[in-house]
């Protein structure tokens, strides 16, 4: 088991490195084809009163008159040696800038994921075991959650709980209460995707013979859910969580802007507006790294969760939503 595991992990890691380098170069190309650069954009503002000679001297001193390929090569060699360089906008080290804002985004993203998981499991449980209309009403919730953008949810929460009820101060967006509401705004749309997959899989599992056997033996709904249905139904959830990491990061950027949090999102926004290439490249590479690592982790977790998944050949494909799930899976016997 260990040997194929290491080969598999090594191959995935090598892929990750290539992906990160490609995103780095891609970011450089995209930002470079935009007109202007952060230094001349500032210098050309007539308010600042620079003469043409002064502008030329400054541009040359910053190496901005070099050919693009030379600039890319310089940036890439520094990046590979672990030097992210200085921000063109603020002249401060890029690593410092990211270290300043990362904790805020990680706090929001993890709280948002917790909210999403809590909501998704609560909704999924309700759809199976709440009686009549209530249960079927819950099935409509994920579609509703998906169709309301999280910035709208955020604005409503700010207005209701920040201004009306005064639970948090709008100018202190990193406080515990403000973080909690930001996490709710972020978590709601993501909970919908998890809930949909979970509901579909629960429906599938609940129709299986072993579930009928368990019910006939008089198991309470809560016990049936927790002991028997949850584990086989939540395997695809791991896939969805890995895929929502991108959404979690992207959504947290929007949520940050709405709540005024100073996280990675606001750094990206400031840097993009100023075409601050070193910061943008580092952030994009970091995002790629997180995305790749989370998906790698998910791939490595499946074989441990489900013995039917082996690392050889096409069978290594991850389980997807219920309709992609292997319907010819062997019947389980219930021993409980």
């Amino acid at each position: 088991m260990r040997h194929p595991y290491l080969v598999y992990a090594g191959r995935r890691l090598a892929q990750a490195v290539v992906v990160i380098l490609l995103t780095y170069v891609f970011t450089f190309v995209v930002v470079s084809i935009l007109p202007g650069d952060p230094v001349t954009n500032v210098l050309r503002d007539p308010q600042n009163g620079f003469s043409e000679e002064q502008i030329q001297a400054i541009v040359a001193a910053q190496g901005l008159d070099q050919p693009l390929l030379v600039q890319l090569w310089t940036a890439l060699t520094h990046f590979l040696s672990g030097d992210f360089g200085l921000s063109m906008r603020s002249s401060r080290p890029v690593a410092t800038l990211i270290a300043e804002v990362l904790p805020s985004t990680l706090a929001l993203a993890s709280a948002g994921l917790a909210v999403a998981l809590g909501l998704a499991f609560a909704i999924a449980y309700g759809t199976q075991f709440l009686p009549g209309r209530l249960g079927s009403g819950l099935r409509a919730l994920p579609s509703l959650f998906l169709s309301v953008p999280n910035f709208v949810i955020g604005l409503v929460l700010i207005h209701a709980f920040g201004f009306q009820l005064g639970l948090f101060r709008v100018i202190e967006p990193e406080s515990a209460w403000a973080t909690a509401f930001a996490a709710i705004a972020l978590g709601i749309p993501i909970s919908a995707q998890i809930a949909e997959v979970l509901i579909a899989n629960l429906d599938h599992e609940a129709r299986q013979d072993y579930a009928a056997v368990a019910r006939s033996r008089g198991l309470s709904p809560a016990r049936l859910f927790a002991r028997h249905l949850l584990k086989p139904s939540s395997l695809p959830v791991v896939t969805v969580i890995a895929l929502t990491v991108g959404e979690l990061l992207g959504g947290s950027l929007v949520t940050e802007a709405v709540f005024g949090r100073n996280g990675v999102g606001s750094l990206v926004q400031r840097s993009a507006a100023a075409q601050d290439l070193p910061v943008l490249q580092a952030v994009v590479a970091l995002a790629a790294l997180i995305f790749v690592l989370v998906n790698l982790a998910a791939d490595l977790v499946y074989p441990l969760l489900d013995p039917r998944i082996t690392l050889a050949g096409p069978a290594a494909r991850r389980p997807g939503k219920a309709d992609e799930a292997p319907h010819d899976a062997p019947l389980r016997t219930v021993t409980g």
Partner: protein
Amino acid sequence: MIEPLVPSRRRLLAAATALALAGAAPALAAGEPRPGGDVVFLIDSLGPTWIPNNSAISSFQGHIWGHVTDKLVYVDADGKVSPWLAKGWEQNADATEFTLHLRDGVTFSDGTPLDASAVVANLDIWHAGRIKEGINPIGLFPKTYERAEAIDARTVKVVFRAPTLGFIPTLGYHGSILISPKTLARPASEQADLARTAGSGPFLVAAWKEGDFVRLVRRKDYAWGPQAVGRTGPAAIESITYKVVGEPSLRVAAVQSGQADVAYNASPQELKSLKEAGFTVATPRYLGFVNGWAINTKLAPYDDVRVRRALQAAIDRQEILDTVYTPDWKAATSFIQSNVPGATDQSARLAYDPGKAERLLDEAGWVKGRGGIRAKGGKPLVLTLYANPYLATAKAVDELIAQQLGRLGWKVEIRAYDVVTFGQKVQFGGPAVPAYEVTRSFIDAGTVASILTSANNGENWFALGEGDPTINDLRDRIAGAKTIAARDPLLDELQRYVLDQGYFIPRTQIVQRIYVQSPKLKGETYNGIAYASYYTATKGE
């Protein structure tokens, strides 16, 4: 580098609790002011970098620099120059040599004395920067600067290559902030850390986080405030927190709900109701050009003085004030703001006279055709406007003017670009730019003439190059003027000439900084660049 936020949080929480106790609606009645208090100032942005030279003239960072640093002279809202850290000065007859006499006992917050050598270090870096290291010069510092030397510990001699009457007022400009020589000696990446920068101002940087906040605390041994503001000792306010809130309506709502004291850059349309609700609204004017167009005289049909004069008469400036702005905005009386020393009242030249405009256009051969659009030789009379992205109301004014001109037969096209694209595509005298919308401050009217033509790296605002002998002559005589008394009549002549020729089409006087303030906060002062200083302020309960 960045200190923990705990003390400020505690203070803010205490303030929040106090407000909660005061009831759902925060009490608007101002109580007795007492020393202490934290001012929370909500701002759109905190600018790009904190390297003093590169950031001092940023519209946002100027607020912080104004509290953390001092200047050699003070320039008030009327452009009056008075002593500050320079307690006096003399100049030679040619206005090429200035001697500054410094005040005693002034220190930077790192303990370095603010003496003649410190002033020389500042003048040198304003002039030249350290370009290779990424420290820019101050663009607006007189380019005629030659050198400065410390005569003794309290006396500085400054020498220019040509008469530079604007030197003393420039020392009060927001770029001319005095920084400790120890800070200036550091490399750019260290100067970019605001917490390590030492000024001599009434406040110190206690904590900051990029793009988020800057928290200032009072300097207790401060004793050298400008006489002109009526206070010289330490500030009464204990601390000021500048906090970034990007959304304008959120900034105003936070002040309304008592969560902050000042909201910067509210939209003009909100001001009336805020005033009625008891909030203080301040719209100080900076010293500079009015908001208006520099006309490209190389581009047809604006190469015809009759068309330019028609344009001058075709704009109903009062309607702009009534429709887009509030009574806090003032009508343009020249192409420079009326509070600038040397500005003269040219209102008669800016009167709305649609009849005159139509007559001039008829004379120039632009006749009304189908749809009311004027044309000449098959070409319609077009004016393309590029809304200035630095002024939030620019597009609204453009749209109103488009209606006014449309009635007289103009076809007006409006383009709105973001700051970057605007900087790239829209330039004075650009091939597709008939009218460049100006928003620009300056501290001394003497600099005005020198940027209008192309001589000496001038900006050639009207694309005249060296082609108009009248304006060239006025430019040279203004630049060479050795006293204000000799210069003022020349400035008056320049204003009359530029408006008569339709080179510059004023719209309104400009207010670029709008403050909405809690009534509990009182006694702030506004300087010549319209920055609010809370050094003189007090906050009631």
